[in-house]
């Protein structure tokens, strides 16, 4: 049974203000979370959903304070468990649009199991993961996305951990909408959020987010005017992978190996570039794209890596209930208690 929720149009026309709660926002000055909140509030009127049908669930961490600032239903839960709680919310009432606000520690470390299984089941949730590559609320320990060798309060000699690549993880676990954006690119972030809201299935957005206190400038190379063009490639469906200040660099596929090419070297042209297909149901290319952020000399992709249609857990579950009800008729106490192996004592 397909979930028809996306087709519902709210009778009320909302503005961003309708989605702002009366609670004072208490993130540190300059925190990337402010921008993410602003973009969510700006795009919420476009979700096609009445605000009482929207639920924001979060775990623990700076990012998980998010639901308090949204004037929708909200549940700030416990560390790592947002996906599990959101699953219950959605499964019990599939009419709700359920969002998860979480961080790299909350979702990929303590909540890793819930995350991969929510992806695997393709539950119709939208997960917005704020990745600042640090534990902020506990004041500066390394996280599962911190780069190897990072010096933090809990790794004075540098971490020996390899980080997770969240995009790879989400795709291999089974998410059906996988995207990345930047806190400092409001327009792009708005587009990703709006598109996730329309997706039927597990939608995952990794947002690179600056923590000005404990990991300031972690993504500066991707967000600052001067360096961004060279370090970011924007994924657009049907368009070639081109980047650089003058759009003079491209990426081509040499077998399974991506190669950066110079479009002005006389040997390559735009026709050599890899054309992005976000609906590719073969995960191989998405996986190669996801590796870019780990490869020296490659730009970090933002945009939708992959999206595709797959039956959702909540849709199939309620479909099964409807089917069995049709076959057996709705349950009654009589049917429950008096139909099997009973005997009477007079």
């Amino acid at each position, binding site marked *: 049974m397909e979930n028809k929720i996306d087709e519902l149009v709210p009778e009320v026309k909302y503005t961003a203000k309708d989605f702002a*709660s009366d*609670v004072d926002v208490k993130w540190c000055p300059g925190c990337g979370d402010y921008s993410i909140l602003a973009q969510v509030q700006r795009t919420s009127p476009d979700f096609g959903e*009445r*605000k*009482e*049908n*929207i*639920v924001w*669930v979060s775990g*623990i961490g700076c990012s998980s304070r998010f*639901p*308090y600032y*949204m*004037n*929708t*239903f*909200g*549940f*700030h*839960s*416990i560390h790592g*468990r947002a996906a*599990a*709680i*959101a*699953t*219950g*919310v*959605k*499964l*019990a*009432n599939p*009419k*709700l649009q359920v969002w998860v606000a979480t961080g790299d520690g909350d979702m990929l470390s303590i909540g890793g*199991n*819930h995350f*991969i*299984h929510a992806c695997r089941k393709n539950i119709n949730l939208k997960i917005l993961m704020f990745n600042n590559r640090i534990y902020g609320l506990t004041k500066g320990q390394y996280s599962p996305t911190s780069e190897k060798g990072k010096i933090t309060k809990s790794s004075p000699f540098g971490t020996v951990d390899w980080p997770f690549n969240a995009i790879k993880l989400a795709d291999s676990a089974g998410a059906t909408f996988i995207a990345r954006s930047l806190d400092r690119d409001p327009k792009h972030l708005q587009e990703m959020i709006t598109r996730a809201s329309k997706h039927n299935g597990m939608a995952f957005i990794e947002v690179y987010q600056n923590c000005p206190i404990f990991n300031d400038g972690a993504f500066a190379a991707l967000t600052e005017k001067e360096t961004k063009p060279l370090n970011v490639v924007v994924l657009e469906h049907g368009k070639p992978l081109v980047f650089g200040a003058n759009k003079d660099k491209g990426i081509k596929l040499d077998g399974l190996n991506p190669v950066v090419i110079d479009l002005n070297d006389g040997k390559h042209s735009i026709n050599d570039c890899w054309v992005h297909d976000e609906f590719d149901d073969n995960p191989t290319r998405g996986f190669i794209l996801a590796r870019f952020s780990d490869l020296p000399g490659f730009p970090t992709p933002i945009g939708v890596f992959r999206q595709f249609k797959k039956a959702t857990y909540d849709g199939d*579950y309620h479909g*099964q*209930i409807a089917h*069995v*009800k049709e*076959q*057996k*008729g*709705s*349950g*009654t*106490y009589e049917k*429950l*208690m*008096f139909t*099997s*192996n*009973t*005997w*009477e*004592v*007079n």
Partner: protein
Amino acid sequence: MAKTVQVVDDVTVRFAGDSGDGMQLTGSQFTDTTAIVGNDLSTLPDFPAEIRAPAGSLSGVSGFQLHFSSSDIQTPGDAPDVLVAMNPAALKVNLKDIKKNGTIIVNTNAFDAKNLRLANYDTNPLEDGSLAGYNVIQVELTKLTMAALEGINLSVKDKDKCKNFFALGIMYWMYNRPIEITLKWLETKFKKKPEVLEANQKALQAGYNYGDTTEIFTTRYDVKPAKLPKGVYRNVSGNEAVALGFITASLKSGLPLFLGSYPITPASEILQELSKYKNFGVITFQAEDEISGICSAIGASYSGSLAITSTSGPGLSLKMEAAGLAVMTELPVVIIDVQRGGPSTGLPTKTEQADLMQAMFGRHGEAPVVVLAAQSPADCFFMSIEAAKIALEHMVPVILLTDGYLAFGSEPLNIPQIDELPEIKVNFRRDPEGFHPYQRDENFVRPWAIPGTPGLEHRIGGLEKKDVFGNISYEPANHEIMINNRKNKVEKVADFISDLVVEGEQEGELLILTWGSTYGATKEAIRNAKVKGYKVSHAHLKYINPFPKNIETVLSKFKKVIIPELNLGQMAMIIKSRFLKDVIQFNKVQGQPFKVAEIENKIIEVLGGSNGK
């Protein structure tokens, strides 16, 4: 040869064999038939944690005990009158429990050198005289089964698997029960495997005929139907009764039932059972782990479902942080803990009552929940409804304690009509006017405002909340107010539960105070002690937090109080600290329930020569 029929009131049989011999199946078939012919009954399966321990080994022995009677009974029986032993190991493990002069039916074909060695027998007990004093009936079960199945197109191995039904056939003959109920059950079970169906049916029939024709059986026994109260009955195990109870609560409350659960022995049957009832709208979410089990239930509760999670001790530990979230957010959720032997993995298939302290105090912070305990397999049905009612009407997490003994044991349930069961009132908040998420009614209960309700958009969470309004608050005085609100809400439940009932004299020398599954053995022990002239009363706690209001008065009426528990004295500790009342602990932690005689002896020991007068 004419066979005599002897009428007996009460019989305990035990089937024992390898864990691959189908003893649980044989036992449950005998149980179903016995239920339908109208005896009162109580069962005790007892099996190892290993699915298939090495064949013939002592550790692989699986047993199923059934006590049936023409009068009212409460326990699966202390000592079997009859043992069916499929191999030497089964004999070795079970012999010590059999009544003196009891009957032992053995499969002599299994008493070969290899099996004897595996069972650590130096000599064959069937030949060395060590079974003198028992009525040993030697049956060539394997050989007879093979002969009966000649001509059926099945492998020797598959035919061998039918010998439990041959044994069952003998037992049906011996206790004068019809074989048709099992024949019919086999038809449904093996609909798609006609050879297997035919083989099992033939083996059953052949076993029955063998009893009838062979000269080694001289006596049949007749156990007349029990004089149970009028009504329609069905046999239920504790786990099955829990499932039925919560579906009933769903019907009574009008809320869909949501179970979030991770498989764990001995609670998995609750998940399995509930997954069958899709046409009742039941959602069973088999979660990725125990934590997700309760968290998904909390999410479903937030969404407006009757939300529950089922587990056993290790899972209860994992759920505790989330249980604290349910306390903090004041959402209704029922945690069913089917207790097993602990700590750690402990004795997964055995029973214990050692999670009481964890249920009461296992969360961080001041985090009271309602704690209930079921007393018998059939009572699991009623206590599940009660747990749901309290959770929903008081917006509070409830822990319902059962245990392995109740979960796997079974007894007849006198099925109530639906209108005889308590109403469950749920009022979702609809009106946005003056709505505050933590504004309480006279019972300290906050409104349940579910997503999808226009104008009620609000935020809840694990951080401390401002009284009434629910916004985050770190104010010192507010924290104390909220701690007390949550405590008062749980204590207020005492206004809605029944008083502690004293069976027997209302005051005197000795009271036995029980909780959970020790009810049955205690009740029978007291009955026996009274017959012998001892004065002793019984009170049973179904409500552990809060206690019934009259508990202190009841305790004050008796000079001595014995608390039998399958732990090292957890309830005793609570009673002593709460009421400064000295109690006599009577503890057993062997993974097995109390025997009636053990409690009876304790009563006699405590009362000494005084008979309690």
